[in-house]
Structure formats: structure tokens, C-alpha cells
């Protein structure tokens, strides 16, 4: 029973007293102090009374709805994909978008950067792309008659990064994103550079033209909070797409956040998500779901009984199940959904709604699954059906 979302509020004008925008990156090594926005830790927030808390929740819902409305100006259809991308953004994760070419993957990411009023970079992954092309490299600069090596930041130093067709790069290049995605920092030539939060990676996968591609290693797949599938638009959406993109009128995306406070606003909303309360039995449920993805008899299977019964198809088609990051993704995504529903606590339904995008890319299927053309989403859906019968 979710409360209806409020109507989309108009975009607010940026206040005049906004602080200057943060720099693209902060170097951990000794360097001149630069203003940076420290990520707010949830437990550091002073306790608010109910009215203030309700105001924050309402603010979150309004911001979310505004961003979604701006995206829908440019993107026709794909409502679920837009919502899951935004959920992943506010949950502090990254999104892997899988879709055929021409379905608007790049447009979604670019529009999102514009709506958030955050810095946006795009990397087209090719087979000859090198890690330094992503993270940056040291270059010899001459300044005041002196030559010195300076670090030239790569495109990873941005708030929103589009890694287009990420599976076309070599695993070495792909792994260049690992540290950035997991730790929010980049190490180049022995120096670690902090990425300015929020750091949000949207990678796209092309499911066709698999020749000459390198499937992402499981470790990197695990870094993505969600993996969403971008299907072909239906006939009505297709008609609207071709109609709207072939005219002289280009949809104008209005930034939701003021340019100098955009990153801080996003971090503030992300901090609110972390404060959403979770009941113990729902934590147990999320853990049971993750545990159920691990096939029975696997040598990495945890000991002890599972709350959910072992699924036959999981045991048959899955080589490796989800990691604990899958459980984190479940809870974080459920928290965002709870806030969107006006609640400050999650429910079973919140977890179920995010289970497929949060877990489907974490299941490593075996050869039998590929031979039988098994979709991991169907396996997760089976688990959810069994869990619903058992837990409710």
C-alpha cells in the first residue's frame, strides 16, 4: 500500500548565495586544499523532530519526481528503466544498462546529467582503450620555465560517467573502473585521487555483436548496484520517438538542482536514504533471498539452514550465486522505494520490487543455463514467488 507520489513540482531557481561548485577531484596526496563536499554520514545527522523529518522525506519525493519528469521530457517511455536508474543514483550505486543500440541509453545518461546539473563525461569503450584513457595520466608540463609532471585527469573525474559499450574494452581497461566504482578514488602513478561525490557510473552493454567483446568479469559486475534491461519501445512509444526527434524542436531539460549545490543536494538525499529504517525480519528476508541464489552443493555455499527452500533450477543452472553486495543492493533500493512511497521503513514489497535488477547480474550461470537459454531474471522471479508463499 504505497502512497501516491506528489505532483511534480516546478524546478527551483538556484539561490544567489550558493557556494562554488566543487572541483572535479580531490587529491589525497599533498596538494592545495580545495573546497570539497564531504559525504554526509547518516549517523552524524542531528536528530530531527518529526516535522523536519517529514519535510526531508517530502523534499526527497519532490526531487525524485522532478528529475523523473525532466528525464521523461527527453526519453519516451522506458518508465521502469528511468525509475530504476534514479533509485540506483540515490542509493549510491552504479547502473549497468543492457540494451540494443538506438534505444536511448546514451540519451538517458546525458539527460540525467543535465537534470541533476552535475558534471557529465562519456567514455566510448573500444578494444584499444587504455586504462590511462579513463583514469588519466601524467604529462610533462612546462610552467614558468620549469618542467614538471602533472596529472591530467581522465574522464572518470566527473559526477556522472557514461561508460558506453563497456564490454568492448579489454578486461584491463574495464578493471580501471573497479577502484573508481567501489572506492570512489583513482590511483595513478602511485598517487590516489579522490573522486568528487556523487560519483555515478552508468555503463551500457550491447547484447548483440558479441564478437570482439570481453564479458565483464564477475568482480566488476558485482560493483553495479542494478543491471537494468532497456527493451525495445512499444509501438506507441516508437511513434512518439520518431515524431519528436525528427522535428526542429529539441526538448529542453531544466536542471532540478542549482549548479553550485547540486552535488550537495544529491548527497543530502542519499544520506536520507541511508536513514530509512529496516525491520529485523526484512533484513532476514533480504539475506534469505541472497542465500537462495547460491546453488545447493556449491563448495562456496554457506553452512546452516536457509530460510527459503532450495530451488531446483538454481541448483541446476547457477554456478555461483550472489555476493553480500546483492543484499546491500536489495536494502538500499528498497529504502529508496520506501521513501518514494512516503514511508520511512521498508516492506517486503519494496524488496521484491528491486530484487530482479539487484540480483540478476550477480548470478553466474553455468553452461547448462546457456544451453537452455535460461534468463537469470526468471530464476530470481521463481525465488520471489517461493518467498512470497513462504513468508506471507
Amino acid at each position, binding site marked *: *500500500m504505497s502512497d501516491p507520489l506528489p505532483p511534480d513540482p516546478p524546478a527551483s531557481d538556484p539561490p544567489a548565495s550558493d557556494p562554488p561548485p566543487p572541483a572535479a577531484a580531490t587529491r589525497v596526496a599533498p596538494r592545495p586544499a580545495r573546497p570539497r563536499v564531504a559525504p554526509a554520514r*547518516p*549517523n552524524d*545527522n*542531528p*536528530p*530531527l*523532530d*518529526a516535522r*523536519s*523529518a*517529514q519535510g*526531508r*522525506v517530502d523534499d526527497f519525493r519532490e526531487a525524485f519526481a522532478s528529475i523523473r519528469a525532466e528525464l521523461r521530457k527527453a526519453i519516451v517511455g522506458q518508465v521502469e528503466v528511468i525509475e530504476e536508474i534514479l533509485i540506483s543514483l540515490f542509493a549510491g550505486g552504479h547502473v549497468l544498462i543492457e540494451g540494443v543500440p538506438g534505444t536511448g541509453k546514451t540519451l538517458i545518461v546525458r539527460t540525467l546529467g543535465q537534470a541533476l546539473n552535475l558534471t557529465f563525461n562519456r567514455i566510448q569503450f573500444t578494444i584499444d582503450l587504455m586504462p590511462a584513457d579513463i583514469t588519466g595520466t601524467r604529462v610533462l608540463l612546462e610552467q614558468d620555465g620549469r618542467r614538471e609532471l602533472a596529472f591530467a585527469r581522465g574522464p572518470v573525474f566527473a559526477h556522472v560517467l557514461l561508460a558506453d559499450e563497456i564490454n568492448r574494452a579489454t578486461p584491463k581497461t574495464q578493471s580501471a573502473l573497479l577502484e573508481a566504482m567501489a572506492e570512489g578514488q583513482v590511483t595513478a602513478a602511485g598517487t590516489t585521487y579522490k573522486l568528487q561525490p556523487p560519483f555515478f557510473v552508468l555503463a551500457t552493454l550491447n547484447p548483440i555483436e558479441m564478437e570482439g567483446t570481453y564479458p565483464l568479469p564477475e568482480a566488476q559486475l558485482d560493483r553495479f548496484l542494478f543491471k537494468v534491461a532497456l527493451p525495445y519501445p512499444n509501438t506507441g512509444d516508437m511513434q512518439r520517438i520518431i515524431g519528436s526527434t525528427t522535428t526542429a524542436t529539441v526538448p529542453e531539460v531544466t536542471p532540478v538542482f542549482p549548479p553550485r549545490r547540486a552535488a550537495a543536494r544529491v548527497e543530502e538525499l542519499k544520506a*536520507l536514504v541511508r*536513514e*530509512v*529504517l*529496516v*525491520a*529485523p*525480519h*526484512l533484513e532476514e528476508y533480504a539475506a534469505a533471498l541472497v542465500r537462495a541464489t547460491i546453488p545447493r552443493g556449491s563448495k562456496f555455499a554457506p553452512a546452516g539452514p536457509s530460510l527459503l527452500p532450495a530451488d531446483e533450477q538454481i541448483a541446476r543452472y547457477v554456478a555461483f550465486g550472489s555476493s553480500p553486495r546483492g543484499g546491500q543492493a536489495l536494502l538500499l533500493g528498497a529504502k529508496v522505494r520506501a521513501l518514494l512511497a512516503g*514511508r*520511512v*521503513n*521498508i*516492506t*517486503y514489497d519494496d524488496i521484491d520490487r528491486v530484487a530482479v535488477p539487484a540480483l540478476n547480474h550477480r548470478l553466474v550461470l553455468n553452461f547448462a543455463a546457456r544451453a537452455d537459454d535460461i534468463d537469470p531474471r526468471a530464476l530470481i522471479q521463481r525465488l520471489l514467488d517461493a518467498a512470497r508463499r513462504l513468508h506471507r
Partner: protein
Amino acid sequence: MPPFNVGFAQVEDRLRVVRRRLNLLTLQHALYLSGSLVTLAIALVIALALRGQGSFFAIAVWFAVASVLAAVAAAGLRLRQRWMSVEQAVHFADRCAGLDDRLATLLLDPLRGRASSLKDLLLQQVLAAEPRWHVDTLVPRRVPRSLFALLASLAALIVISFLARPPAIPSPIAARSAPHPNQPADDPAAAQPPPNSARVEGAGQLGAGAGPGAMQLAGLSGAPDRAPGADAGASTRSGMVPDRPGQAAAEHAPGSTSADRGRSAVGGALPRMAAEPPKDMTDKLQSAIRNAFGAETAEDRKLAAPAGARAEQRTAEQKPAPGERVAGAGAAADKKDGTSPSNSSAHQPGAGSAAAAGERGGEAPEQLFGSAPEARKVGSGGQNVSIKLGTFAALAPSQVEPQRHQPPVGEPVPSGMPPASQQPLADEQVADAPLQKAEVAPQHEALVRRIFTRDE
């Protein structure tokens, strides 16, 4: 430790009430259902005890015992399964009120001190939804439906008890309280209620087993139309009945046969059961149930058969020769019971004996001693004796006393009567006039001696 919050305490207190009500309902439900099953088992046992055979009754008893044990076990299991913990009560309230796990999130957090600025908002949302999870809304006060099952089973028990109950037998107290048609209305013993049922039953037994002694008393008392048994019963009611039933018969009627008959014909099965325990527990239970409902027990039938046989044998042995003096009241009762078709036990072997009549313990005097004409017939025999005696006591100044005859001091005491010296008279009592020695003609002297000599 989180700061004390009034709203939080209010939520906890209300959920405590919800949990208490739910558990109380569960307890009531379990008790009512198990009680229904137990009641039905009891009804089955009673029905089979009253109407069924012994083997069926034994099976039914064990079935009932198993059912009761199963009911108790099921009630325990149900209680254990449905007994709500705090956590379950919270989930119940969440689910019923549609609170989307708000209560569980608020109350069941093991780390209640987990910092979150949204906790107050959650509490406010919970309190705002208060009408949805009000105690009377979640668990309204109601009577569990299982109570109707219990009531229905109790009704079934009552109906079965009445339907399976044998035909009503008048209670001894009622029988005694009803005046006997042959009993004088001014009999003070009849107006007094019996001291207890054992005495009443023993009184009937006394009358049945007293034998010739009672006959002689009747003749001496000069009340020929009174039933001997009734007279004996009156004497027992006046304080002469010993505590142990049958003891009076043994005392008043010397001889092992009369004593055995009195012992075997004790009215009331429970004292007899104490003396002679049944073979097994189910028989004992069945006898107890049948006694409680006034039905004839199996022991009664078993005991009645040899007693009746002995009585008939004794009747045949003591059948008076022509011209000989008649037997006692017990024989008269035997004669009546053996011929009266109205007596239900008359069709059973030996049921017509005085022993069988007395062991009923609660039968009406007319059933014990026959109808009025037959009682007169019995009395006529005594009258013959009294006439004979009257010829010799014609010179006595006082012939008949309404009270019990007290032999004068110094006179030979009839058998079975305590000596008069042992019973001092009260102030308001007047001593009987001493009998004057009659002048017996020499031709009648032999006859008189023979009459006053009991051994002959």
C-alpha cells in the same frame, strides 16, 4: 539508551493489550475445544455404561481416555503454536491494520538505539494511524465460537444422559416418606425421615431378613394388618438399626442363611462395591455410572441370581407342612415377589426373594411386601397366632398397646428383643401392666409350652 518517549510507551502498552487478548482467546479456544471433546467422550461413556454391554463399554472407556489425552495434547500443541510472542503480536497488528511493517520496524529493532532522524517520524505515522490498530479494532471483545461447541457438547451430554437413563426407580427416601396403605397414620416412625439412606435400605433388609422374629413381634404387637417388614422397618427407624447394613438381619435372625442373605442383599451398590471390588476398572466404572443413574448394575444381576436361588431353596425347605405355623415375613415377601407380575425383577431368577427385594433398597413398601390384600393374607397368618395367643392371654388387662411391645420385667424376653431392664422408661412412658399368670387347663398345657418354646 534511547530517550523515554510517551508515544513509544503508548504503542508498546497497546500492543501488550493486543497480545494479551489474542493469547486469551487462544487459551479459551483450546480449552473449549478440548472440553467439548472431553464432554463428548464422557457422554459416550455414560451412554454405553447405561445401555451398552461390558465389552463395548470397556472399548469405549479406553477410546474416551485416548480421546481425552489427545484433546489435551492437541490443546497443548495449539496453545504452543498459536501463543503469540511480542514479535508475532506486532506482526499481527501490522498486518491487520495495514501499517506496512511500521510497528515491527518501530518496536522490533534489536538496536533500538540505532540513530535515525526518521524514527520520530515513524512513531508519528504509527500514532496517526491509531484508529486502524486500536485494540478493539484488532481484537474486538467476543465470545470464541468454540464456546458454542462446548455448550453443544454439554447439551449432548445432558440429552444422552436422559435418553440412555433407565426407567426411574423411586428413591428410598420418597418411598419411605409415602405412607403405606397398611401403616397407621399415627405411626411416629412413618412421619420421621430416615436418618440416612443406609438405614432405610437396611430397614428394608431387616424386614426381609428378620424372618420368624419379626413375625413373632407382629403377633405380639397385636397389629395383624401391618406388614411385618414395615413393622420391622419401624423398629429400625426408632434407633435399633445398626450402622452396617445387614447387621440387623444377622442379629435378629440367627442362622447363617439369614445373615448371608442380609449381607448379600445390601441396598446401595457402592457400599457393596467397597466390600467386593469389581473385577477390573471398567466394570467398576460402569457400575459406578449405573449406580449414579439408578440403573441395575452387573453386580446386581450377578449377586441377585445366587441370592434368589438360595432364597427359593430356603423357601422350599421351610415350606410349612399343613397345620404347621407359617414362615416369617421374609417368606411372605418371597411369596409375593415371586408371584407379582408388576415387579420388574420378578422375572429374574431369585428376584422374588426377600433378599432381592431388600437389596433394591429403594423400592416402595408395597413392592417389598406385596399389595394390600396379600399383606392382609400375611397378617391373617399372624392373626391366627395372635388369636391363639389371645386365648391364653385373655385374662391380661391390657391386650394391645399402640407402642412397641415391651415385655414385663421378669418375663422371658422373646428372641430378638432386648431385655426391658436395659431400656429404662422415660418419664412420660407408662410401664405395661404385668401379665398375670393365666390359668391353663391341663389339656392345653402342652400346647402352651410348645408355643412359648422357640426351640421347638
